[in-house]
């Protein structure tokens, strides 16, 4: 693969918490325009890796480059530019509880200090419509909303500046199957309308099968497989055969016959 097509490059990354080693020599390249899913068991460090890519934590060793630039040693303006091009959907939404739904989505736009209030209003209403939230909810506070609505509004906020790179941390965790399907459909629709790269951490096989172009599997402190779903399933590793070919995995994959045939 051409190196310059990498939107995120992780090289030789080690993570340690005290004496506990989480990651050993992880290398990863996320290509522009793809949906990459990070999977792994609990405690395998999916969230830790994601936080390091986002620059929320610093790895013990190794480098992370986003848009070809290292995360550290940059001036304020460069970091701000980089941040404006990324959107993050946190697991619990992380809506600002002091701000209404409208103000939550408008905040990143206002912080740009380039858009006037009329334009922000149109954009916020557009984003709300995109995530199928009725305008009547715009003046509500996050505390008054259900979990599914919080997720969708958080997605609208993550998409506020039309980012090139979108991070989804457990996008369907805590949603009922119907809402979760709706959420996956929503991301698929947005992906077809806008061009952006998605990095997603999930446990949910349905979400994984429906959205991912490539899958990265974290187990035994390493990246044990990286490739399309078919390639990953054919990798010989205990975690992968448990995760994808267990009872739950087979049930999910049955809906996608071509992949199932490749394992049988």
């Amino acid at each position, binding site marked *: 693969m051409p190196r*310059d*097509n990498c939107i995120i490059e992780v090289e030789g990354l080690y993570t340690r918490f005290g004496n506990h080693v989480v990651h050993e020599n992880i290398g990863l390249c996320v290509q*522009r325009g793809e949906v990459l899913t990070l999977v792994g068991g609990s405690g395998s460090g999916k969230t830790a890796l994601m936080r390091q890519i986002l620059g929320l934590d610093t790895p013990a060793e190794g480098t992370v480059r986003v*848009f070809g*630039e290292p995360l550290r040693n940059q001036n304020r303006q*460069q970091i701000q*530019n*980089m941040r*404006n*091009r990324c959107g993050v959907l946190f697991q619990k939404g992380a809506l600002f*509880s*002091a701000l209404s739904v*409208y103000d939550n989505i408008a905040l990143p736009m206002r912080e*740009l200090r*380039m*858009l006037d209030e*009329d*334009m922000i*209003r*149109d*954009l*916020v*209403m*557009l*984003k709300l*419509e*995109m995530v199928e939230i*009725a*305008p*009547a909810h*715009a*003046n509500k*506070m*996050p*505390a008054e909303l259900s979990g599914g609505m919080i997720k969708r509004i958080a997605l609208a906020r993550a998409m506020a*500046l*039309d980012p*090139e790179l979108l991070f989804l941390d457990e996008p369907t965790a805590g949603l009922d199957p119907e809402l979760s399907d709706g959420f996956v459909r929503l991301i698929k629709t947005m992906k077809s*309308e*806008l*061009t952006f790269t998605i990095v997603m951490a999930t446990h949910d096989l349905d979400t994984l099968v429906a959205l991912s172009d490539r899958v990265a599997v974290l187990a035994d402190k390493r990246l044990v497989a990286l490739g399309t779903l078919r390639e990953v399933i054919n990798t010989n590793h205990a975690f992968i055969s448990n995760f994808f070919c267990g009872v739950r995995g087979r049930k999910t994959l049955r809906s996608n016959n071509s992949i199932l045939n490749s394992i049988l």
Partner: protein
Amino acid sequence: MMPENQGSSSPLVLRRVTGAKGISCVVVEGNCTLAVIGERIQQIAAELSQLASEPELRWDLTQVAHMDDAGAVLLWRGWGGHQPRYLFVKPEHQRFFERLEEMPAPPPPVMRNRLWPITVLGKAVFLLWAHLVSLVILAGQLVLEIKYLAGRPSRIPWREISANLYRTGAQALGITALVGFLIGVVLSYLSSRQLQIFGADIFIVNILGLSVIREIGPVLAAILVAGRSGSSMTAQLGVMRVTEELDALTVMGIPHSLRLILPKVIALGLAMPLVVLWTSAVALIGGMVVAEIQLGLGHKFFLSRLPDVVAVSNLWLGLGKGIACGMAIALISCHFGLRIKSNTESLGAGTTNSVVTSITVVIIIDAIFAVVFADVGLR
């Protein structure tokens, strides 16, 4: 710092061309995205609205490479909130304008009632009443818990009481000593200067003894503890509410009042008189040091004269204040902690209210003691 590939950094350009039949057309080229438009947004908006004033103009958007919502909204607003009569656009970009056409109107902002001063005042009165009622309920609950524990001494939460005793008492010794010592020094210094004028040096013992033991020690300790332990109690209960730990306790059948609130109230009721004693002692030492330096009164003389001029009832009064203030602080802090709702705003406001109320109540308790015990310990 724009991406280099796919030519997605080419700027947005509006070009006006006149075709063969004299038909004017605006060709939009480049990228119609927020990242590319950036600082030029005002300039492009002005250009657009100028061009849009000609309704017969044709708009050719087929040369646009990338478009996003912000770019679409910019064009849309330039056209005056509707599509121009002649618009040529790539099919994948057509959806942006379709969505904009279907966009619902924003909800009207909430109107402020003209009678707001009255409603605000009314709400404040009701809120005060609600606070009083739930404080009384909480205190009553604690009494019932004590009654329950009296029958089953094995259920007394000793561990929680001792943990709270350590946190609110032992860990407060440093700060109360520092503040107490400094106040003692200041008080002694200022008083001794005045007394020297009248040659009444010896009365420094009366002034310091009475004021520190009866008044300053207890009030100082109570205010410090209210700020220190009160705020932490409120925040702790508030965070437990936010993280649903309180609900987890309830579904396990462990009442909050028994395991969380009663230990705090009892522990602070026990710790406060001790902290008061400590603060008063250190403040007196501070005063004594200055009296020795400033007036040449030896500390042995100071200590031997102290019991003669300050009745021991003043000490009991100070300790009594400590018990009352300690229990009141714990009760109020827990009350505000339990009222916190599961959002960050409420957590901040609750903690502030808790500390402000505790300190106010400490002063009120002090005033009540002063009136009720006006005839005790003073000669």
